[in-house]
């Protein structure tokens, strides 16, 4: 069924997935290189540009879901991308003091490996119509989710003193709309959401994996 629109869609998605794949590949490469040559304190500086680019590009995926270009429900992509953007821009980019922490290394490596697998898989599907062993790759999340999520939670926690001291992104009273926003308390709330959110997400992925494994057994 090679209607012009289908071809265009596949072309666009192939290019999108492979481009972002290259971005994350760069992130992993530069991270490991910096780790070996200079130590964990320098990992962020080495990966900053491709990391900001590749992670921000993921916003496109919300758009793709909304206009129906891909089948993923917006309700599951939104929290995932939201937490990624929060860590990338709201913590790492906003508070330089946290960038030298060792958890940045574990975070960046966990994210990069996960995304390399994900984008190459979707890139192959769109470009070639098939991709090998999805259920095997799904199993990597069993390790990468705990390491990634622990790094995220840890970084937010260790950044708290810097957040409080800087007063960044805060909106104070008095004002005529009787509104205030405190980024420090918002960060604590974010940590709170991780408590029920992480097991929920992990459980969801376990279900996905079980389904994929049973499907491939039947084939």
């Amino acid at each position: 069924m090679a209607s012009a629109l289908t071809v265009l869609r596949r072309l666009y998605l192939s290019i999108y997935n492979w481009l972002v794949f290259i971005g994350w590949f760069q992130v992993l490469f530069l991270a490991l290189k910096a780790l070996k040559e200079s130590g964990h304190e320098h990992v962020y500086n080495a990966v900053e540009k491709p990391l900001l680019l590749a992670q921000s590009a993921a916003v496109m995926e919300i758009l793709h879901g909304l206009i129906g270009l891909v089948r993923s429900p917006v309700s599951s992509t939104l929290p995932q991308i939201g937490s990624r953007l929060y860590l990338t821009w709201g913590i790492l980019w906003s508070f330089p003091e946290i960038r030298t922490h060792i958890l940045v290394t574990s975070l960046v490596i966990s994210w990069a490996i996960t995304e390399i697998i994900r984008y190459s898989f979707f890139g192959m599907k769109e470009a070639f119509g098939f991709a090998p062993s999805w259920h095997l790759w799904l199993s990597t999340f069993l390790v990468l989710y705990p390491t990634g999520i622990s790094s995220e939670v840890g970084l937010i926690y260790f950044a708290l003193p810097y957040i409080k001291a800087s007063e960044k992104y805060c909106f104070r009273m008095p004002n005529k709309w009787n509104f205030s926003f405190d980024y420090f308390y918002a960060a604590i709330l974010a940590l709170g959401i991780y408590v029920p959110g992480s097991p929920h997400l992990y459980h969801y992925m376990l279900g996905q994996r079980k389904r994929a494994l049973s499907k491939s057994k039947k084939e």
Partner: protein
Amino acid sequence: MKVTLVSRSGREFINGGLELPDSATVADLQEAIYKRTKKFYPSRQRLTLPVPPGSKERPVVLNYKKSLKDYSDEKQNKLTVVFKDLGPQVSYSTLFFFEYLGPLILYPIFYYFPVYKFFGYGEDRVIHPVQTYAVYYWCFHYLKRITETFFVHRFSHATSPFSNVFRNCAYYWLFGSYIAYYVNHPLYTPVGDLQMKIGFGFGLVCQLSNLYCHIILKNLRNPDGSGGYQIPHGFLFNIVTCANYTTEIYQWLGFNIATQTVAGYVFLVVATSIMTNWALAKHRRLKKLFDGNEGRPKYPRRWVILPPFL
């Protein structure tokens, strides 16, 4: 009469079934199930007639007042009933009482007690008149709600799943505290006098209209609870299906016009969207039921919930 009880997967739920007198009602059946299983009290039971496999029809729910003969196979004098456990239940009155108690108690705490020193503010505080009127208005609202729960509302289902206690209380208690924090804040900025009077005046009129709407809804239902849907009529119901939600929404708008906080408006938006969902479902249900066929009246053209918008 022999009643066979199966679960939704088809397995026999009570081995050997139950034997009941021919004149027994569904309520008697529920009692018998409870006595036998000891765990599933009647409000936890959902009893339906079996649906042929593959059928898309919604199963017929047994009415507790009807007699078993109304559902059974006449010639063979037996009946098969599908059982589903609805999980632990709580009565609506209990649920509503606790979810409304939170805002009733938490909001005045922010007004009367020096809580803001725990947020780092000093003890000095100027109390503006609008803040005082707001605490009276707010407490009147939730006292009204609690009173209506016990003396006005007639519930179509007696109970609600127990888990709703946590969800509903979180919603009311958290939003109540969130709004109370800002309206009673030491750095609160009041609006002009005229705006405040318009807000509270309008809000009060809506609250009283809302009470009247609830009384009308109560009288729509028969006192013995034999229920069934009626076309609502009288007062605002002549022009809008869910006039009770309408007045509730506009009542909160009045409160927000008078107190002007982002927190209050956020609550208004969330509450409005929840009520709009309910209103759309109710309006749809009534239109489907009152379609004008077979002697049934046709549901008149009306606003759903928020004239002039929806």
